[in-house]
């Protein structure tokens, strides 16, 4: 990677950012210098031509980020925040049609199979390459129904009233250090608004990937599901291998209004050097249902606990979590259910697999606030360990302020059975095929909740992990 661009950027005073060079080697047209401070944050805001309220939000978030200590729980986070690029803009604007997308980016997408997937049954596709959304499409009929599906940067310009009402309200920058960092330097991500009573039948999808060394990715997603509306949003990630450490820290905020239904499915497969520190939270109002389906593969450390706040009676939250921890990986994942109102219900199902010395931890919170009577909630976590070097832990936190609740918690740890292996091998399967089959069977209850192509992709990723061909 050439360094001249970075040097130029460092030398450029604020206000002269239009001098930035086009970078022909890796398609980047602008890259902020390494590190994060008010200058970099202002620069990002300038390039995006943002309104003052967003600039102020960013700067305030930066202060909060600087004032917060690193979390002392979870995994070991060894990140030099000043040695990371926080913003990189790959092309000079957003591709309107597939033809407008630059060739090398297009090749990457083609390897990911996006156009094909789109042809099949996708309602719309958003893809994030590095920090900026470069390609997007939304089927016409969705537009006619009033569904908004755009990158979040565009939403700040085009839908300021919705953004100002909800952006940063579900997850304020004060929430945690990484949510604050994201709030300061965020770029890209999806914004979706589904109007009252509109049901989107097919999953909406976004693919994205990190593709520059030491490149942080801080996408920001906001989904508003209005009363009685319905949506399934799907997000998948693949990332190439790099040798220096990299940071991915996203924030996803979702509002499920009365009687609505939202499912958010993710499969992430990060390179083994990436810190994946994500905050995901949904507020579910009366009789609405929020479901998180969350699959985590790869990364050096993932800390992610999708949350549902059950705000009004009848709200329901479901969290399905799958984690695969291979060599040198720590998956610290789980979920949070916060019952803030009576007659709310929730369920957490977590399945983790540890292999080759990998470590998976389930960390979950079930909280019942005062007044949230007659709530029901169950937590089931199953761990599968493939060898003696690997490790699994469970950290269930339960805080209950009401006696009239029903909370169930079950945890199991299974070592891959010699008897199972023998049985399958005695039918002609190799040891790798047999253990892959057992692992795929173990996560099958969650996989069948995914759209078919994602289920296929997840099974394929597990196969690759089992073969050890993904580092």
């Amino acid at each position, binding site marked *: 990677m050439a360094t001249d661009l970075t040097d130029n950027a460092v030398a450029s005073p604020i206000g002269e950012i239009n001098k930035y060079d086009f970078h022909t080697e890796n398609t980047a047209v602008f890259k902020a210098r390494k590190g994060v401070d008010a200058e970099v944050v202002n620069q990002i805001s300038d390039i995006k031509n943002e309104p003052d309220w967003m600039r102020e939000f960013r700067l305030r978030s930066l202060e909060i980020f600087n004032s917060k200590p690193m979390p002392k729980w979870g995994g070991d986070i060894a990140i030099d925040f000043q040695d990371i690029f926080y913003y990189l803009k790959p092309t000079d604007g957003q591709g309107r049609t597939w033809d407008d997308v630059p060739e090398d980016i297009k090749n990457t997408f083609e390897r990911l199979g996006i156009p094909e997937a789109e042809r099949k049954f996708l309602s719309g596709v958003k893809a994030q390459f590095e920090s900026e959304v470069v390609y997007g499409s939304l089927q016409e009929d969705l537009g006619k129904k009033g569904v908004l599906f755009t990158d979040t940067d565009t939403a700040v310009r085009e839908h300021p009233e919705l953004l100002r009402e909800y952006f940063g309200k579900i997850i304020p920058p004060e929430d945690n250090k990484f949510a604050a960092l994201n709030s300061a330097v965020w770029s890209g991500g999806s914004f979706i608004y589904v109007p009252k009573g509109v049901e989107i039948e097919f999953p909406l999808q976004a693919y994205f990937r990190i593709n520059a060394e030491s490149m942080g990715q801080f996408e920001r997603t906001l989904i508003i599901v209005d009363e009685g509306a319905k949506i399934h949003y799907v997000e998948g990630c693949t990332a190439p291998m790099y040798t220096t450490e990299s940071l991915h820290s996203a924030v996803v905020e979702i509002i499920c209004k009365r009687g609505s239904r939202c499912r958010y499915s993710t499969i992430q497969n990060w390179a083994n050097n990436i810190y994946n520190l994500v905050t995901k939270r949904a507020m579910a109002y009366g009789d609405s249902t929020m479901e998180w389906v969350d699959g985590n593969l790869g990364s050096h450390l993932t800390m992610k606990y999708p949350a549902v706040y059950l705000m009004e009676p009848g709200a329901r939250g479901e969290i399905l979590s799958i984690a695969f921890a291979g060599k040198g990986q720590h998956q610290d994942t789980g979920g949070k259910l916060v019952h803030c109102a009576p007659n709310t219900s929730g369920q957490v199902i977590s399945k983790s697999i540890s292999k080759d010395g990998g470590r998976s931890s389930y960390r979950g919170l079930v909280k019942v606030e005062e007044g949230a009577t007659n709530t029901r909630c169950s937590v089931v976590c199953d761990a599968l360990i493939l060898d003696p070097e690997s490790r699994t832990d469970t950290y269930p936190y339960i805080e209950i302020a009401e006696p009239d609740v029903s909370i169930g918690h079950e945890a199991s740890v299974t070592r891959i059975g010699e008897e199972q292996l023998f*049985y399958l091998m*005695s*039918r002609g399967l190799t040891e790798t*095929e047999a253990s892959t*089959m057992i692992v795929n*069977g173990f996560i099958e*209850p969650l996989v069948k909740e995914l759209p078919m192509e994602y289920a296929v992709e997840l099974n394929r990723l597990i196969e690759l992990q089992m073969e050890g061909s993904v580092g």
Partner: protein
Amino acid sequence: MTDVLKIENLHVSVEGKPILTGVNLGIKRGETHALMGPNGSGKSTLGFAIMGHPNYKVTEGRILLNGEDISEQGADVRARAGLFMALQRPISIPGVRMADFLRHATTNVRNPERKEGEELIPMREFRKEIKAKMSQLQMDPEFARRYVNEGFSGGEMKRAEILQLAMLQPKFAILDETDSGLDADAVRLASQSIAEIGGEHMGLLIITHHDKLLEHNPPDFAHVMLGGKIVETGGVELAHELHSVGYDRIRKTYPDAAKLERAMQEELEEAV
């Protein structure tokens, strides 16, 4: 040339404890052998050792398939060379559908050279075949969609084993109490099925306490195990004798093996 499975002076230990103490046995393809003996005499151990279970360590002797020593090979290699064992207690594999498991197994056994990741038998072809086999065995087609042995009744498990036998068509099959836990009708169905799916073309080693299984699959030879050895071999009449009168005569005739049997039993009881 007829395929031959030959066991020579086989000694097998489990967790360091000797269970088999010198078994000799030869089976030609097309023959049916009944393997009998009191509980704990080593019948299942012999089956697992032939099939290559990693916990059953061969400490002496050989297992030869057509003259080649396979006693160091993994269970998968043996399966692909034409061996099969129907387990007394089949193992459940949650989340894995019978059809997916069997398609993979059938592909590998029919194409022993197949490398991981290579194509499986085409879905359409496989589906047609398994459907035909299941209807032959009077199994509900829904069965193929269920998870392997998960929540199966005793009878369903045994029929699933027979279905696998039918699909994989091994050269040699060990049937470890495939009739146990079944009622009379189910035993009749199972024994007929084994005969129907071409059992007579295989070399069968049937471990059983039942007369019924042998009625439909009359053994050419019956062997009695005691104290980790085959102490007597005879024809079908030996099998009938043991069914009706038990093992007292055997223990009297082979006092050394009976002594060994007692010692092994006592050790087992102490361990418990």
